[in-house]
């Protein structure tokens, strides 16, 4: 890395640092602490944006120059350093807004237009990554708005000192080819979508306490700094090696996935990694596009590109993203999809928009739309069980559950004896399935009650702690959930006497293996029977019939003493009690059944 490119890196770090820590954060906080809020706040920020756009185009018209860049950086430093004092006169807060916006417009356009003279794409990635990383360091990020303003003034001054001398250039910079060009309209479309999406997501994160704590809390800042730096470096390398189009798509995929995951508490940890990574990718591209991927031949033309891109993608995109998030308090799924389509179009897809292609796509898509409408208009007259079966098919239950007991010992001992193949093949469609992530369901109606099934659909891990089954609570917002439960309850009904009869002959085989009965009880029984086994588990009130008090009785279903009672208890654990909410635990092996039965019987004896 040459001295010139190191100065360029420092310049990018300073500009990004100033923009992120002051324009995005400290300035807004100072303004609010001065009492500028509501409409006044919007007007002030509007002045900043308009001034930024105007200054950007002015910079492009005058042509990029080192002198303009230095003057703008000095102005930026001064306004940041003086803003804390402007809090005492809220009436004139529009003046720092005007200067900040103007300085930023001037700085960013000049910088993006001249960078190619000074450094390569790897340096751009390093500069952007470092800029983000430094702003995320706890001493900077967590400090007060006043201190952040002073930090920002420092950033601007360092950047000003790093600006290379006029005429200083690494080589014949415009003769080095880049890997491709991104037409202006494509760059505007793709980058605006990304800035919009990022601004909206960031607004939501910063204004939702839980979300902020789990993604941008103090403990996460070092991680975020590292991820930003890594993202910037990767983006620089990626652009150096290929065209930037894949980068844009990759950034969207990361941001979209983060926006998707952030809705689930368990997904927030992953979202916290993906979001800063995606931001660094596209931010690096935002800086590099005007100089490297515009297909322009000199810095002046690059400045015009920069002015357009920063005006539309930067100012317009971020303002709309924040406004949308502020209004809706979420990032709508449809918006993520639309942003993806914009990015997709920007990455070159627009080239295929020929009339023949459009015609063919229409020819294929229109019948589907018509058929979809026709289907919703059709009358529905199936029985509850048929409707439930349709839900089973629609939800793809066959991908985790079989409905086929094979005529082999392990299957028959676990799920009941094998039935007739012809009966299975009579189903339309046949629901044999090909994978068991969960139990076989051919006779599930004989092992589970309606109440148990419903609770399990809504909160699977409450009943089965290690279950990989998703929650299907949404099915109970309409009729589908109850239909599905009715269907499942019907499975095995035609063989009820036969299978229940078989169970009476079952007894657990002797086993040298030792199972931990207390652990089994705590994990699989206590939720209904209670930790003390007296029937007061947390689900007890949701069951039709209260769970048995296993400590004191009465033992309606397993009365008696000695070997017979022991066998009845073992069978009850294994197969459940038809007609009650007591489920079967058919996947327990015999050692588990023995251990649990011994434990329950020992309580009775006490």
């Amino acid at each position, binding site marked *: 890395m040459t001295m010139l490119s190191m100065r360029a890196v420092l310049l990018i770090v300073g500009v990004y640092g100033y923009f992120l820590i002051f324009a995005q954060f400290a300035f807004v906080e100072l303004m609010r602490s001065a009492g500028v809020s509501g409409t006044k706040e919007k007007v002030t920020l509007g002045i900043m944006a308009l001034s930024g756009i105007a200054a950007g185009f002015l910079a492009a018209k005058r042509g990029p120059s080192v002198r303009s860049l230095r003057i703008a950086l000095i102005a930026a430093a001064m306004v940041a350093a003086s803003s804390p004092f402007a809090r005492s006169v809220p009436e004139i807060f529009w003046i720092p807004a005007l200067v900040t916006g103007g300085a930023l417009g001037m700085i960013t356009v000049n910088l993006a237009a001249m960078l190619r003279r000074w450094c390569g794409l790897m340096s751009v990635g390093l500069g952007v990554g470092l800029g983000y990383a430094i702003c995320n360091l706890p001493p900077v990020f967590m400090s007060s708005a006043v201190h952040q303003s002073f930090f920002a003034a420092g950033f601007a001054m360092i950047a000003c000192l790093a600006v290379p001398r006029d005429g200083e250039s690494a080589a014949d910079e415009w003769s080095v080819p880049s890997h491709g060009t991104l037409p202006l309209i494509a760059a505007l479309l793709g980058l605006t979508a990304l800035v919009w999406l990022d601004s909206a997501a960031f607004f939501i994160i910063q204004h939702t306490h839980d979300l902020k704590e789990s993604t941008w809390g103090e403990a996460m800042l070092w991680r975020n700094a590292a991820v930003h730096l890594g993202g910037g470096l990767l983006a620089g390398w990626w652009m150096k090696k290929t065209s930037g*189009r*894949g980068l844009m*798509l990759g950034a969207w995929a990361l941001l979209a996935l983060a926006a998707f995951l952030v*809705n*689930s508490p*368990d*997904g927030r940890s992953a979202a916290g990694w993906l979001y800063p990574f995606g931001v660094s990718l596209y931010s690096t591209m935002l800086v590099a596009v005007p100089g490297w991927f515009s297909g322009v031949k000199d810095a002046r033309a690059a400045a015009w590109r920069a002015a357009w891109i920063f005006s539309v993608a930067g100012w317009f995109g971020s303002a709309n993203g924040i406004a949308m998030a502020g209004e809706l308090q979420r990032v709508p799924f449809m918006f993520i999809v639309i942003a993806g389509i914009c990015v997709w179009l920007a990455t070159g897809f627009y*080239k295929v928009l*020929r009339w*023949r*292609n459009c015609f*063919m*796509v229409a*020819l*294929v898509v229109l*019948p*589907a739309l*018509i*058929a*979809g409408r026709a*289907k919703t208009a059709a009358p529905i007259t199936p029985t509850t069980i048929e409707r439930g079966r349709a839900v089973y*098919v*629609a*939800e*793809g*239950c*066959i*991908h*985790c559950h*079989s409905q*086929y007991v*094979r005529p*082999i010992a*392990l299957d028959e001992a676990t799920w009941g004896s094998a039935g007739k*193949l012809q009966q*299975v*093949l009579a189903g*339309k*469609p*046949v629901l*044999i*399935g*090909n*994978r*068991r992530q969960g139990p076989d369901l051919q006779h599930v109606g004989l092992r589970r009650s309606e109440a148990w099934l419903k609770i399990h659909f809504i909160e*699977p*891990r409450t009943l*089965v*702690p*290690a*279950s*990989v*089954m*998703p*929650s299907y609570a*949404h099915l109970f917002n309409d009729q589908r959930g109850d239909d599905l439960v009715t269907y499942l309850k019907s499975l095995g009904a035609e063989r009820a006497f036969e299978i229940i009869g078989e169970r009476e002959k079952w007894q657990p085989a002797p086993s040298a293996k030792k199972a931990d009965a207390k652990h089994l009880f705590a994990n*699989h029984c206590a939720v209904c029977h209670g930790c003390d086994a007296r029937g007061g588990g947390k689900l007890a009130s949701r069951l039709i019939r209260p769970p048995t008090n296993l400590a004191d009785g009465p033992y309606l279903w397993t009365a008696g003493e000695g070997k017979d009672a022991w066998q009845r208890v073992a069978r009850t654990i294994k197969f459940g009690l038809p007609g009650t909410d007591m489920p079967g635990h*058919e*996947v*327990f092996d015999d050692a588990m059944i023995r251990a649990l039965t011994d434990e329950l019987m020992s309580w009775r004896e006490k």
Partner: protein
Amino acid sequence: MSKCGDDPVRDACGHALAWLAVANGVGLWLALMLWFPALNHSEWTYGRWVPVHLNLQLYGWTSLPLIAWLFRLYKADAESIRPWASAALWAWSAALVVGAASWLSGMTSGKIFLDWTGGALASFLIAQVILWVVLVAAWKRNQSTWDGKWRIGLLVALMSLGMVPVSLWFASSPAVYPPVDRSTGGPTGASLLGSSLIVVGLMLAMPRVARLAGHGIKGSWLWIYFGISWLAFFIFEHIGGTHRDVCQLISMAMLLPWVWIIPRDWSGYDWPASSKSWRHAMIAWWGLLVLSGWLMYQPGVLDRVKFTQALVGHSHLAMAGFTSSFCMLLMGLLTGSCVGSKWSVLLWNMAVLGMVIALKISGWIEGGGWSWMLETPLWREIGWGIRAGCGLAMWLISVKWWLG
């Protein structure tokens, strides 16, 4: 490769790689949902994503290279047909998008790999008809440039292709189901032989239709054995039975000689140097697929691995290992360049192997008893971790191939 241009053969390869990247992304998502069930979101749960992954791999990734091959055979890349051939590809891809939307919204026939129903089925049938019409137009335009035998051969193939939409419509009906081995609930040995023989036919055709210099195995015994294999399929499929019956075991055993025959046949041709890595990978995967498939069909073994991750591993061996290598090799022959660098090819195959081994070991343990459904044993966590890690590597590589 993926640049949209005026060459429908390259365009088809570009579409194929795009679908590979998308389908692998969905596969990775599925692996993560299994590992972290909380990632299942509202209506779009694991069960709805599975058909998206399976069908995009089959009808997107593995079908489009064959379409590229058809374009080359019928000279659909000739001047006047070219834009229509490229447009037909967009119709195909649009049908896949409609299909994916349909499966995610819960519209499915409930038949694995034949989930097409309602509007999605109509879309896909129309896309197939469009493609067929393009091929008919190409044949009509170019017929005078071919000699008699080749012209008739292509016409016969064209008429057979015309039956594909009808077959798909018939096969995707919920009322139709193939013969079942009653002891497993899965396909019979003869069914597996039949589907494998189609692949054998494609492998025998590849160097011959590509008109590579050299020649395959001399003499007619190769074709006699191929014919006998098909005859065995028809007879044993008609007889039916289970994996404990001799005729079904013979069906599977009839595949074993092809592990040796295919490389022996191919070694007589002068393959382009750029095809080396994928050709070797494909032959290795083919051998592994047939040998492990035969082993897993044996009584006792199939009883243990049926319904477990071992069979999921075998599917990945077939699709991500063997079929993907075949498609890559085919695309390389059609475009004259190898897809992926040496390292990316190696990394892909290593990732597939890692995933297959993890799935097969997990499946073997699963088959010993079902108590793992109630606990989360360490071996399952490790298996999911390896699966997701390999899936991530495969997805990243496929994205690179597509964008590259």
